[in-house]
């Protein structure tokens, strides 16, 4: 199953987003929060790399990010975890993680389809 890593500047936000998404995936999705850094608010390439390695079961990992430096650290982490096929989704972090979590539990899921579903969340409207 494709794994998900949630990279927010806040460790709490990453955990909370993973909690909500875990429910969307019916408890079956593999979702690892990797938020915050040693100083508190921030992101850490080492934490993200560990997240990627633990989210992967061989099928690869999609990484969801919040701000700019989360993207850069996620890229670095992906380079460091060179054995794991991992891609960053260009998606709003919470909404993208929910969509992605549902998709990972589909028997037809691929890295591409998970990224695509995550990125679909950009078009998600909340008000009628």
């Amino acid at each position: 199953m494709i794994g998900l890593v949630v990279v927010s500047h806040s460790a709490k936000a990453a955990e909370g987003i993973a909690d909500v998404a875990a429910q969307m995936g019916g408890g079956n999705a593999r979702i690892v929060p990797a938020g915050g850094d040693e100083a508190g608010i921030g992101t850490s390439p080492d934490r993200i790399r560990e997240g990627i390695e633990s989210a992967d079961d061989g099928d690869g990992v999609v990484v969801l990010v919040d701000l700019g430096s989360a993207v850069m650290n996620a890229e670095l982490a992906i380079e460091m975890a060179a054995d794991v096929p991992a891609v960053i989704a260009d998606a709003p972090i919470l909404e993208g993680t929910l969509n992605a979590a549902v998709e990972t539990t589909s028997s037809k899921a691929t890295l591409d389809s998970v990224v695509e579903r995550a990125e679909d969340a950009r078009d998600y409207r909340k008000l009628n």
Partner: protein
Amino acid sequence: MADAETERDAVLDALDNVAARLADEKSYLTDLDSAIGDADHGANMQRGFGKAAEKRDEFEELDPNEVVQNVGKTLISNVGGAAGPLYGGSIMFASQELEDGITADTSVAFAETYLDKVKDRGGAEVGSKTMVDALVPAVHTYKKSIEQDDLPPLSALAKAVDAAERGVAFTVPLKALKGRASFLDWRSVGHQDPGATSTLFILEALLATAETYLDGAVERDAHAADAARRDE
């Protein structure tokens, strides 16, 4: 340069000088970042280069390019923020250009590779109000001074520092298009970019180090000097 040992000493001294300079400028950089960011750039840079400088003993065992690579790694894990992957990741990556030693040519290659990685990683171009605004003029000037004008590296580096200074000044009137400051939109105009400024300080510390290792007339560009910083 000369033998690998002298090169390694030069790199280690440069590391010390950069770390010391950034420690001195910690509160200044933090002030800049508090205007258009989250007021941590001073602490980020000081912490990251401080950790790297603390590893001097460890680094004594390594080749010069390996020292540079390990400085990058240390920055990646210790700077934090956007500066961490930009400085750390790009230094680490560009260190491969120094595998055959540090010469005028390999230093140009290092500078170019470093610049490309920063641009590639961060997606900023000249005018985005980031460290790229200091880096591009510095790297272009360095390369041209060495490759076209046949200036000695020390002089080329001095010119690069002047160019970076102009770049720093250039960030003031711009609207930030990348990084945290871009969230402020128009309110970022009129403020000097912290990352461009720390880039300048690093280059100044490298120049100071080079002055103790390299010979050659130091040709600086009179007009650029001291423009950026003290006007603020």
